[in-house]
Structure formats: C-alpha cells, structure tokens
C-alpha cells in the first residue's frame, strides 16, 4: 500500500509543474517515484505485461504533454496520475478485450477479496488514514453494490461483463452500480 507524506505530495506537485514547463529530468524523476504505483494498478487491470507497459508509457507521455492540466487545488498529484493511467487502461480494455480475457470475479494478479478478508485492498486500506473514509463508506454499501464497484474499478468491467461475472441480469447490475455510487457519494460528502 502506498502512503505519501505531505512533503512527498508537495514534491510530486513541484515535479508536475516542472514537467508542464518541459523539464525532462523532472519527468524522469516523477516516473521513478510513481511508476511502480501506476504499473501495479495497470497490471491489475490489464493483466498482460505488454499491455500494462504500453499503457504505462502512454500514460506518462500524456502527463508529459498535458501536465499543465493538473490542478493542485482539485486533488493530490498521485490521484491525478492514477486517473490518467486508469483512463488509458480503460481505453485499451475497450479496444482489445473483446472476449480476449475471460470475465471472472476471482481471477486477478492480486485478488480483490471483497468479502473483507485480511488480504483485500479494502481491509489493508483502512491502515491508511487517507483511505479510511472511502473504505468506511464502502462498508456502508450492500455486498453486491460493493463488489460491483470494486470489480468495475480494478477489472475495468463494463455493465455487461459485471452481469456475467456476478451472474445477474444487466438491469440489476446497473442498479447496483447506480445505487452503490449514490450511497457512496452521500457518505463521502458527510
């Protein structure tokens, strides 16, 4: 699990500013500091190392070209970087998955145990102060809502794929996602 101190966050923000100014050395340092986090996520989502490596490189090129889009007032640098990587992974999945990867609710490089056992990211996350609120709110969701949200996040599953993975009608899965996110939002805004 990644925990960044305020000092590290500030440093990442500084690096992003320099990258926006075309400083290649800062891009390299930013990559060195953050790429294992992004690569871990991409490996989780894409499963194939060659896809994950392609997405990783594309993500940092995107950062190189669009670093000025990062707004420190809207969130932490690592959150922004993760967003860039996830969108790239989602794009790759949409164009390449096409049944290439069997939809599964259990198989993954690092299985998400959404039942709340010791190895799950959800449980490990509560050790981090920054994640505590999100995870507390996640526990307020029903089991199927929580599972749907986590599978969509970590596996990049579409509604249809979630329907297959959870063996439930498409409309039901859509409702789980919709209600789960609404409940999550309500909790996060408290």
């Amino acid at each position, binding site marked *: 699990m990644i925990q960044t101190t305020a000092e590290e966050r500030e440093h990442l923000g500084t690096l992003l500013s320099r990258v926006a100014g075309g400083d290649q050395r800062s891009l390299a340092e930013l990559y060195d500091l953050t790429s294992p986090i992004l690569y871990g996520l991409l490996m989780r989502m894409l499963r194939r190392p060659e896809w994950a490596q392609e997405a990783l490189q594309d993500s940092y090129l995107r950062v190189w070209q669009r670093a000025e889009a990062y707004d420190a007032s809207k*969130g932490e640098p690592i959150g*922004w970087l*993760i967003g860039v990587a996830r969108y790239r992974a*989602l794009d790759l999945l949409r164009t390449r998955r096409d049944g290439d990867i069997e939809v599964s609710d259990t198989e993954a490089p690092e299985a998400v145990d959404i039942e709340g056992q010791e190895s799950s990211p959800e449980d490990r996350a509560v050790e981090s102060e920054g994640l505590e609120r*999100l995870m507390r709110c996640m526990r307020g969701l029903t089991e199927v809502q929580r599972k749907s949200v986590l599978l969509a996040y970590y596996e990049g*599953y579409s509604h249809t794929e979630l329907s297959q993975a959870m063996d439930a009608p498409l409309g039901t899965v859509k409702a789980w996602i919709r209600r789960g996110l*609404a409940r999550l939002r309500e909790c996060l805004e408290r």
Partner: protein
Amino acid sequence: MRYDNAELLRQLAAEYVLGTLHGAARRRFETLLETDEEARFQRDFWEQRLSEFGQVLSPVAPPLDVRAELLRRAAPPVMNATSDPVRLPVARRRRKRSVWAYAAGFATAASLALAFLLGQHYSDTDVAKPNVGRSPVATTMAAGPSEPGEAWPIYAAEVRIPGSAKGWLLSLTPDHEHLIAVASDDFFQSGRQQLQLWCLVPDSDPVAIGVLPSEKDASVTFQIPAEVRGRDQVTFAITLEPIERATDNESRRPVGPVLNQTRNLVDAI
C-alpha cells in the same frame, strides 16, 4: 440527455470515472466536460475519491526499458538532433558524424536484438587480442543525473541475458564522452565469472568496455574508447568472462560465451 439534472450529472460523472459509462454516452459526457464546469467538478470529485483504490495495490516495478523508451519519446529535440543541426550545441555538432550521435535513434531496434550468438564462443583463433579494458570512471546506485539542470543520458541500446528479465541499459552522457550501463536486476554470478561489455566494430578487434554492474539499479560509467568513436557501425556484446581474466588487463581477451549482442546501431553514415 438532460444534463441540467444535477442528480443525473453526478451519476454520469461517477460512472465515467469508474469506467462503466460506455460508448456514445461516454463520448457525449466527454464533450460536455469540455464546456461544463459542473461536470468537470463532479468528475474531479470522483477521480480523487476513487483514486484511493489505486493506492491500495502493491507497487510493481516496471521493466527498465519502458522508462528508457518513454524518455526517448519525450525528448524529440535530442532524438532529432542530427536532422536539425540548428538546435544542436556546438560540441555535439562537431561530433555529428560520430556513431554516438546517432545511437539513440536506433534504440528501439537495438533493444530487439536477440541472442542469435548464444552459445557461440570466442577463442584465440576467432578474434585477435582485444584492446586493454577500461576501468569505470564512476560507479553509483543513481541512474540519473544528480545536479539540477543536468541533462539526462541518451538511451543507446539494451543488452539482456537471453530468456530472462535481467538486462543492462546503455546510455550516452549528453556530452557523448561516456557510456553508462545500468543493471535492471540483480545478477547473481556463478563461480568466478562476471559479465563483460564489449564494443564490436567492423574490421577491428573487439574493444573491451568494462565489467557490467551486477546489482539492481547500480550504474557504471565508462569512458568511451577512442577506437570506437567516429566508427560507422557499432555493436555491443556481453560475454561471461572468468574474473581473473577480466581483471588482468594485459592478458584479457574474450574467452567466455557471447550472451547477447545488439544489432549494428548505425549501418551507414
């Protein structure tokens, strides 16, 4: 679609970030993001909240060549230097016919070199006595420059242990005076052997560059031998050499197996 419905906008933003908003609906929302501040606010809200999930997973170190390729792609002025002499510093223009000035542009091709010589051995009858090997001018665990404003090395090639992820990234210092080798992983030596980097040029003896680092992320900087500078074709090769031979410069010549070599970095200048 009624985007003036606040609840709907929230829902769309959430599903957009989560990734469950697909197809035309996703594209419409992306168009809306360009002009609608509230849509961007909602998207930012979810991006930041959900990104926490991404920080829960264990970090995984990406392969070394991803970084090298990224920096190569992110630095078109350096990579295109030979075709844009106006942007070149004087020192680099002066060396523009040097193979080292062209090496970076062939980085990708070089990294594809396979171990077609695996198992092939140099012997005293195969090659003449090589030149005396060089001592590294610096050994460090830092792969990049340490001073602010210092330019990054120029990716030149990659040599690998066949069938494994272990490899060495070879880069040139910006002044083209030194070659930096960075180990992508720990290399556990068996017995009294170590990995030696060579430079092969046509119609010439192999030129010993030096002993490659064996500890992950360790880098060694070598002076580029005068015999190699300005040559039209250059190939890197690694051999497994007995330690006693590798350290005895006077009698050293490649006797171990060639594990890997790049293709010619420059075919003609």
